[in-house]
């Protein structure tokens, strides 16, 4: 009983991680850019719900409207970042990390100046506040909604990759950038599109988080580290690996937390990841290349 509840908590945590990590792995896989500002884009997604609710009374409608709006808002911020800064840094992955961290600091303060330093509360629609009973277990509806959102995003993303011209171009650039460029694919435009999508996904994750708690200027920081770990152990740019590892880390955290408490759990999960990397240094799945290491 408790184990099932803990597992569900883990799956729910995993689905949030997945939503954030999806964008990260997409951007990292294609452009070798580590976007530390992803957490802040996530925060702006959450604030989108708050702003929409200033104008709309219906919580349900604002939530559904927030999904596309947040996607566009976060995506546009990301796009601006790409065009103004990150474009110059494609050969320097570690430096993108620091530059985007700088952007994150600026965005945090920006949010603090606009929305205030205190946390804001958003309304959740009626039908998401209850619980869904399955057999003898009851699951919070909001968490099921987030799970559905995460899985929906993964599905949409993988269908895009498989069946659309854009997806084919992205895959081509990821697999061999120079060959793709030679074949006439406009790689820098594909990069920009990927950046937009990746950052937009963070916005959607932010909308999902408003169902679970208050939103504030530093909320992005609390998920970004874990989301990056998911990317590392899943394998850079690997959708399948990211999905599996997001749920694995989520459930492992929840189960270990249940056994030893949350503070030791973080340390144990970290040790587990280091050991995992002994076995799979490139993450769970990795693209086969002939290059060294």
């Amino acid at each position: 009983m408790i184990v099932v509840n803990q597992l569900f908590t883990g799956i729910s945590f995993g689905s949030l991680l997945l939503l954030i990590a999806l964008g990260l792995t997409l951007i990292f896989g294609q452009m070798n850019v580590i976007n530390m500002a992803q957490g802040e884009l996530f925060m702006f997604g959450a604030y989108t719900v708050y702003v929409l609710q200033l104008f709309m009374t219906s919580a349900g409608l604002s939530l559904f409207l927030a999904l596309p709006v947040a996607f566009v808002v976060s995506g546009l911020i990301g796009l601006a970042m790409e065009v103004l800064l990150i474009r110059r840094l494609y050969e320097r992955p570690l430096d993108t990390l620091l530059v985007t961290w700088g952007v994150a600091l600026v965005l945090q303060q920006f949010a603090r100046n606009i929305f205030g330093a205190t946390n804001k509360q958003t309304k959740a629609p009626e039908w998401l506040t209850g619980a869904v009973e399955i057999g003898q277990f009851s699951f919070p509806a909001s968490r099921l909604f987030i799970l559905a959102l995460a899985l929906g995003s993964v599905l949409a993303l993988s269908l895009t990759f498989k069946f659309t011209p854009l997806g084919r171009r992205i895959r081509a650039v990821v697999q061999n950038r120079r060959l793709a460029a030679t074949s006439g694919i406009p790689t820098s435009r594909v990069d920009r599109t990927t950046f937009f999508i990746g950052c937009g996904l963070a916005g959607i994750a932010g909308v999902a988080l408003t169902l679970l708690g208050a939103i504030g200027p530093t909320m992005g920081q609390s998920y970004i580290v874990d989301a990056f770990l998911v990317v590392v152990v899943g394998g850079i740019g690997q959708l399948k690996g990211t999905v599996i590892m997001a749920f694995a880390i989520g459930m492992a955290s929840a189960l270990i937390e249940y056994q030893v408490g949350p503070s030791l759990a973080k340390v144990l999960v970290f040790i587990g990841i280091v050991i995992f990397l002994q076995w799979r240094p490139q993450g769970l799945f990795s693209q086969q290349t002939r290059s060294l290491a």
Partner: protein
Amino acid sequence: MNAMLEKIKTHPMLAKLQSNPYLGRVFRPGPIRTMSGFAAGGILLFLIAPVVLSQFRLELLGKYLAFAIVASGIGLAWGRGGLLTLGQGVFFGIGAYAMAMHLKLSQTPDGQLPDFMQLYGEVDRLPAWWEPFRYSWFAIPAIIIVPAAIAYLLGAMIFRRGVRGAYFAILSQALAAALAIFIVGQQGTTGGTNGLTNLNNFFGYDLDDPVNRRMVYFIIAGVLLAVIAITRQLMFSRYGELLVATRDAYQRVRFLGYNPARVLSVAFAVSAAMAGLGGAAFVSIVGAINPASIDVVPSIAFIIGVAVGGRSTLLGPVLGAVGVAWFGTAASEAYPDSWQYIQGGMFILVVAFLPGGLATLPAAFRAIKGKWDDRKPPGAPSLSGAVQEASA
């Protein structure tokens, strides 16, 4: 000034000293420059600063020097080795907590529990892992050895499997997050969010007395000079060459028969030891430590000074750390709301547009001027070598 230098350089006494078989090594131009640099630094820190600065500012400077000790190690690991460690707060924290535990125990009367343990009341006797920190012969070496050992072990494990670059940066950051959360969670024995505070007994000297706090400042300044000397020795040794080679051409170093994992682990361990020293220095001058000062955010803040000063130079990280910290205090006193904009802006501007830091500013100017003149190709030395990461 130059004429005087010229006079000294051509003085027959110097030639005589240089040809001396025992003293000759010391009186070559290189060592002379180094030693005069250290002498100048010593005069600045030990004579000028204490006279010019008020007690309050001097103590602040002591705190910045503690950060500079950390920065020196980061310069070695990141600037020379290409290891972007976003988790130096972990080692800073271990050093700081080791020192703080010793100071806490030395001011607690025998047979009693430290004040915060009595307050939280989660334990009724001193935990076993606190016990050895009662003795300074254990606590002081622990400040250096424990961070170095953990870093070496972790480094050996992950570098051995070829995990480096961005993966390493992310892992080190996760470690910082994990440690901070761990300490917060163990409130009964670590002081939790409040940390260890009110440390006022520094090896028998009362830290409430300003004179003793000045003494602590002098000790920190001395440690900093020693750390710079060690960093210099490592940078310009054969090991330093190998470290730069590992940064720039990892696979080639491997094919030449070296073990790049070991080279990197050593750099990581040395930088961790320096971070530990910095943490201990921080605790001694500030008199408190809490998890918020060793978390992810302060860990990245260590990087900014190094980046601004010049990551791959000897003095750049040190001067950058002190300068940025000083500037940070001044800016947040004057404009508390905009400090984070400035800090973010510094990250963006320096890393994106001047990756070699301020140390390479003259070279960058020359490069721009060279392009402008269009006479010869810009001869800017590539101090920013870390930038060209091995694209293997």
